[in-house]
């Protein structure tokens, strides 16, 4: 980003990076301590949900940015890009799901949808900016 960050963007980054660090730390912690360890079912639920919590937090942080942003033009650009990325993600997830049914592609865990969304969001931001140039 060539321009100076505004307060809403600074707050977004200040929330985003610690949450991503927490996500990586939880994943590393679980892999180091619990890989191959026999655990009761209730504990597995906790371990399975734990890495999802910071990712859900990131989604909330993205939403918070939209409500924090006081520059209405930037807010509109981000909202457009988010909608486009959501559409792309849902389209890919739907098509992939049917391809899985036809045994054309290997099974993918549903959490990959967030990775696809992030990639689509990056592309969408570029597209929205280019379209308004």
């Amino acid at each position: 980003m060539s321009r100076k960050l505004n307060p809403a963007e600074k707050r977004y980054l200040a929330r985003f990076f610690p949450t991503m660090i927490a996500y990586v730390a939880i994943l590393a912690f679980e892999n180091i301590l619990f890989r191959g360890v026999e655990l009761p079912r209730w504990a597995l639920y906790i371990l399975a949900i734990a890495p999802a919590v910071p990712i859900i937090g990131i989604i909330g942080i993205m939403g918070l940015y939209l409500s924090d942003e006081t520059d209405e033009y930037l807010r509109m650009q981000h909202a457009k890009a988010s909608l486009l990325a959501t559409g792309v993600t849902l389209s890919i997830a739907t098509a992939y799901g049917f391809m899985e049914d036809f045994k054309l592609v290997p099974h993918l865990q549903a959490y990959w949808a967030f990775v696809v969304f992030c990639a689509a969001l990056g592309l969408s931001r570029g597209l929205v900016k280019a379209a308004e140039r």
Partner: protein
Amino acid sequence: MKNRLRVLRAERGWSQADLADRLNVSRQSVNAVETGKYDPSLPLAFSIARVFGLKIEDIFEDDAA
């Protein structure tokens, strides 16, 4: 929506960044409004009018009129 932002800025010797600072928005926002790619909300249009000491209709042209 057509507008006189470029002319009004030039009269005052302000760059887009100067106007953006006065409006507390990004330079991209000023550029998008100025080039007619983005129609500002009523609060932003009032802010623009206030900065130039004019009425909204002295700055923005009603395409439908």
